[in-house]
Structure formats: structure tokens, C-alpha cells
């Protein structure tokens, strides 16, 4: 009898109940909240569901040494986590993004690239604020990239500059990307007048296939020569786009933007979620990171809109730009462009801003990859 009791007691020590702490339950609760938001509200479900469930997986209390945890060398989760840790999931996602992105809106109105550049100030604003809050420069750089509103870039850079903060940074970036409509709309309305919101922009010209093919090659050469440290992201982004536009690699492009990106998104979401173990995630730093992430989105949106307003001072007639597309400079594709469209149509149902906003939106993808390269070059 005593043997049975002893064995049962030993079994009890191996269960999650015996090893649980309140922090574990808190993280599991956050995971469930993520899943609920994704399903009920439909906010970034492809990311929030894997991340949310990953949070639950990563916070199941366990007896250490069983070699199953995400931070235990050689475990299954740890092996899958290497793609995040070594930074090779994000470039694969960029390959898919390149293969699914149509840069026509940008090529037809190249001047809109500047809005994408202006919105990157969110990254550097957050960098300055993070330094002010006492983070080291490498940590501040990793936190700042949240302002790029680009999950893969945030994971890539934080895995290189501040691996300890990666969980909080990734969760923060994806959370605020899901909240883009909530964060950006009030800022756009506060900073624009009714007259400005009604500005109509001429329809973009038709872009030839030749231009679409030249774009990834020239775009890559230029950006990679200026910022070689952004090579993994920029290379994969433009390569994916070349697969799409070349017209002769349809199968490769379909795989990159379909099965491949789906597999990698699933794994990146799940493992990033699993990496948010309570003891590493529930810290004062995580709260600061969430605050800085929010501020970086606010700064990026504000500067984007104000930049267009300032630029309009020098433009005449139909060259003027509707400042409601200023928010789209962050690289949350296509959510922020969609916000421009929705807010624009609130004031003029026939004023479609989506195609115009897609220009700065995809420019934001390039801009944030360039910014990540610069931060990696200086701080890596």
C-alpha cells in the first residue's frame, strides 16, 4: 500500500498541478484571451491563434529536466524554436510576403515611398524612449522595431539583438498589429481637417510587366548595397516578388505565398507563443515593452500623417495627397491601408484610397527591413 502511495505521490510531483504557479495561470489566461480575440473579433487570427495556443503550451507547468520545454536543448519544441532563435523563419515569411505583394501601387506613384520612410520614425522614436527608460542600446533597438509594425522583422531583429526580450517584443508587435484600426483611426481624425480628408487623388497609372520585373532586382540591389545587414530580409522579400512577377516561376511563387508561408507562420506563431514562459515573460520589462510598442505605433502614425500634411504645402492641384494615407507608412500590410480606405469613405463614400495607401504600405515593408538592417549594423 505504501508503495502505491509513494508512486502516486511521485506521479503527483510530475503533474502540472504540483508545479503550477500563479504566473503560469496568468500566461495561460493571456493565451486564451488571444485566441478569443482572434476568433471573436477576427483580429490577425492567423497569428494570434498560434501565438495564443503557443502561450498555453509554453506555460504548462512541468517538472524540469524532462527535456520537453522550449528552452531545453534538443527537445522537440526547442528544435522548432531554432527557426526563431537563429532567425531563419522571418526571412522565409518575407519570401512569401514578396511572392504575394503587388508593388504596382508603389511603382505607379514612386513618390509615395517617402511616406513609408517617414513612418519609420516610429521605430527610432521608440528607440529613444527605450533608452530613456534605461534599456541598453541593443535592447532599445530591438524594442524600437515594434514601430515598424512588422512581426517577422521584429522577431528577426530581437533574436539578434536581445533574445531575452524576443517573446515580449513579438507578442507586443503582433498585438498592436491586430489593433491597427483601433490605434490609428483616432490619430488620423485628430490630425486632419475635413477638407483634407476629402482630397481626391488621381487614379494611379497602369504599370507594365517590365517595370514590375525590374522593381525587385533594382530595389534589392539598391537597398542591399546601402544596408547589407538587412540582406536576409530584403533578399527574400525581393526574391519572392521576382518569383511572382517573372511570370515563369508560377509554381515557386504559389508555394512561397501558399504552403510555405502557412507552415512557417504556424511554426513561428506557436514557438514564439511557447517562448513566453511566465518566469521570462511576466517581468517589469515586458510591461515597459508593451508601453513602448504602443507609443511606437502612435509615433509612426502621427509622423506619417503630419509628413503628408507638410508635403502638401508644396504640392498643387491634383498632385496633393490625402493625409489619410499617411498612416499606411507602417508595414502592417494591408491592414493600415484598409484603415485609410475605411476612414476616407466615412467622409466621401466615393473616394477610394486603398490603392493609393497600398503604395506607402508596401514601402513601409521595405523601409522597416532597411531600418532593421541599420540597427543590426550599429548594435549587432
Amino acid at each position: 500500500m505504501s508503495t502505491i502511495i509513494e508512486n502516486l505521490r511521485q506521479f503527483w510531483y510530475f503533474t502540472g498541478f504540483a508545479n503550477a504557479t500563479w504566473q503560469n495561470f496568468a500566461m495561460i489566461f493571456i493565451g486564451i484571451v488571444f485566441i478569443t480575440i482572434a476568433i471573436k473579433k477576427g483580429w490577425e487570427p492567423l497569428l494570434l491563434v498560434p501565438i495564443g495556443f503557443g502561450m498555453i503550451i509554453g506555460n504548462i507547468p512541468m517538472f524540469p529536466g524532462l527535456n520537453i520545454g522550449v528552452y531545453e536543448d534538443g527537445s522537440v519544441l526547442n528544435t522548432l524554436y531554432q527557426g526563431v532563435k537563429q532567425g531563419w523563419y522571418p526571412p522565409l515569411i518575407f519570401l512569401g510576403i514578396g511572392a504575394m505583394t503587388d508593388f504596382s501601387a508603389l511603382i505607379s506613384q514612386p513618390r509615395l515611398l517617402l511616406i513609408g520612410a517617414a513612418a519609420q520614425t516610429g521605430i527610432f522614436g521608440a528607440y529613444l524612449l527605450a533608452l530613456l527608460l534605461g534599456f541598453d542600446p541593443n535592447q532599445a533597438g530591438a524594442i524600437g522595431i515594434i514601430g515598424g509594425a512588422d512581426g517577422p522583422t521584429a522577431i528577426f531583429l530581437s533574436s539578434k539583438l536581445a533574445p531575452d526580450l524576443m517573446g515580449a517584443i513579438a507578442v507586443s508587435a503582433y498585438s498592436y498589429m491586430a489593433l491597427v484600426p483601433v490605434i490609428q483611426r483616432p490619430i488620423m481624425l485628430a490630425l486632419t481637417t475635413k477638407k483634407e480628408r476629402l482630397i481626391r487623388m488621381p487614379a494611379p497609372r497602369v504599370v507594365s510587366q517590365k517595370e514590375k520585373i525590374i522593381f525587385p532586382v533594382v530595389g534589392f540591389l539598391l537597398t542591399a548595397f546601402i544596408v547589407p545587414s538587412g540582406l536576409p530580409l530584403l533578399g527574400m522579400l525581393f526574391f519572392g516578388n521576382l518569383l511572382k512577377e517573372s511570370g515563369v516561376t508560377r509554381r515557386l511563387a504559389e508555394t512561397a505565398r501558399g504552403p510555405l508561408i502557412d507552415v512557417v507562420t504556424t511554426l513561428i506563431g506557436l514557438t514564439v507563443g511557447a517562448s513566453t514562459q511566465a518566469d521570462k515573460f511576466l517581468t517589469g520589462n515586458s510591461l515597459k515593452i508593451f508601453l513602448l510598442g504602443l507609443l511606437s505605433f502612435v509615433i509612426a502614425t502621427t509622423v506619417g500623417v503630419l509628413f503628408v500634411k507638410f508635403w502638401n504645402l508644396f504640392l498643387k492641384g491634383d498632385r496633393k495627397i490625402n493625409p489619410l494615407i499617411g498612416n499606411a507608412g507602417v508595414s502592417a500590410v494591408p491592414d493600415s491601408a484598409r484603415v485609410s480606405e475605411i476612414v476616407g469613405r466615412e467622409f466621401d463614400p466615393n473616394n477610394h484610397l486603398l490603392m493609393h495607401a497600398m503604395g506607402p504600405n508596401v514601402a513601409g515593408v521595405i523601409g522597416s527591413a532597411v531600418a532593421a538592417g541599420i540597427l543590426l549594423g550599429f548594435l549587432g
Partner: protein
Amino acid sequence: MRNYRIFILSILSLLASATLSAQNLTDLLIGEVLVENTCGIEDGFGQRNGWIELFNTSSGTVKFGGCYLSDDKSDLKKYHIPTSDRAAQIGPRQSIVFYASGNATQGTFYTNFQLRKGSTIYLVSNDGRTIIDQVEIPSDLPADCSVVRIPTGIRGMDFVSEISSKPTPGSYNGDVDAKTKSQIMKETDPHGFVLTLIAVLVVFTALIILAFIFGWIGRLNKREKGAPKKVKKVKKAALQEGSMTPEIAAAISMALSQEFGGEVYAAIALALDDYLGGGVHDAESFVITINPTQGSTWADKAQNFRQLPR
């Protein structure tokens, strides 16, 4: 003809790989040499010999099996590093030590010559002629002091020779206490303004240049479109036929913008058919009617269509 091409390609590939191999070997250098070892590192046999450290300056692994070490310019093939030894490779920015015991039978990393002050040590490529690197040993080199090549410069890819009283066999010759970039940044730019300014400028510059290039390409494209007379002729012909309607334009546009799926071919066929006068289609009412299916659909015509007509 095809075989001939494959043969040429194979030869070119072999040449390319040989060149790459040679380039890898040039990434090696003699990192440190110590002649008189009285209180330093012991070899695998508990002996204190002079030693030669090789350093890989590249970011990739370099295999050096087949290369030679020598202290005599007239006999560059003095010690042949065994090709068969898998250990004869150095990881990126790593180093490896050869003990100059004078007895090569002790193993791969034991040379058949001992070091002498005033001599020159050569690292020779696997062709036995090309000197990859050489280091002169001063005749007055004190005991337990080494001739060391210290990495300098921002990238740590330039090297200066120094005499060191603290030899570091098999480990990095640079400043092991060197600060990280982040630490340097914290000291030089504590508030982050300089980095911010530079980064914003670089992002803007990159995207402005891109905007200029594509603005220019766009203008060039427009000019090209307007130039050739052939295009005008076709357009005129189309107008004469009376078939260049917005529907045709939309169909062509759809065909061009859809880069996958059988819809492309269908749209192109439809557009060309209309463009060339049409006539093969019945007049359509343009009213879509959906009738609920009654009973089994086993004989339905739609069941005979291939799902993937590619």
C-alpha cells in the same frame, strides 16, 4: 550537342569550385608563433614545444588538408598536412595549433621540424608553390614570448604583428575584453540621437533613390509606349473593326493581371476572339439564373469537366 554542353558546364563548375577552394585557403594566416616554450602550453604528449597557430579570417569553415608548413623557402613542402584527416579544418574566425615537435609521427598537428629564432615560417597552399602567408621570427625573440598577429580596424580584418609576452595559443588574438557595439554606442551616443539621425537619413536616402529610379523608369516607359507606329496601326485596325470595347480592355487587363490559373487562358482567348471579330459565341442574355438541382446529378454535364484544366 547536348552532351557537349553538359561537358562544358561540368568543366566550368569544376574550375569554379577549384577557384573557390583556392579562395578559401587564402583566408588562412599564421596567427601566432612561439619558439621557446618553457612554461606554456603542453602538447598531447606532455612536452613543451614551440608552436604555430593558424587563424581563419573568414566567416566560413576552411579545410587546409593538403597544405604545407615550412621554415625553409627552398623546401616549401617540408611538412605536408595530411589530406585524409577530417580534423584538418578551421571554423569561422577560429584558430588551430601545430606543435613544432620535430616528429610528424605524433599526429597531424605535429610538424617534422622544430622552430628556430631568426627563421621564417611559411604556410603553403596545396599546390606546394603558392605561399599563403609567412611570418618572420626575430632572432632576439625572448623565451615564452610569441610573434602575434593582432586584428585591427572596424571589421577586424587587418592584422599587425607584435611581440607578446602573453601568448594565446588556439584562442582569439584580439582584445578579449573588447566592448560590444552596443556598449560602445552606450558610451558614445547615450541618448541615441546620433544613431536616430543617421538611421532616418539612410532610410530616406534609400527610398528617395528608389523613388527617383522608378519615377524615371515610369517616364521612360510612357515615352516608349507613345513612340512605335506599329502600336498605333493595331489600335486603328481595332477601332475599324469596332470591337475595342471596354469589355475587351477589361478582359485583356484581367488576363495580364492574373498570373496563375486557367482563367488567364480563358480571358485571353475571349479577348482575342472579340478583338478579331468574334462570332463563335452565341448571343447571351447576360441574365444569370440558378436553378436548384433536382435528384441525382450523375449525368450532369458539369460532372464531366476536369477540375484542373492545365
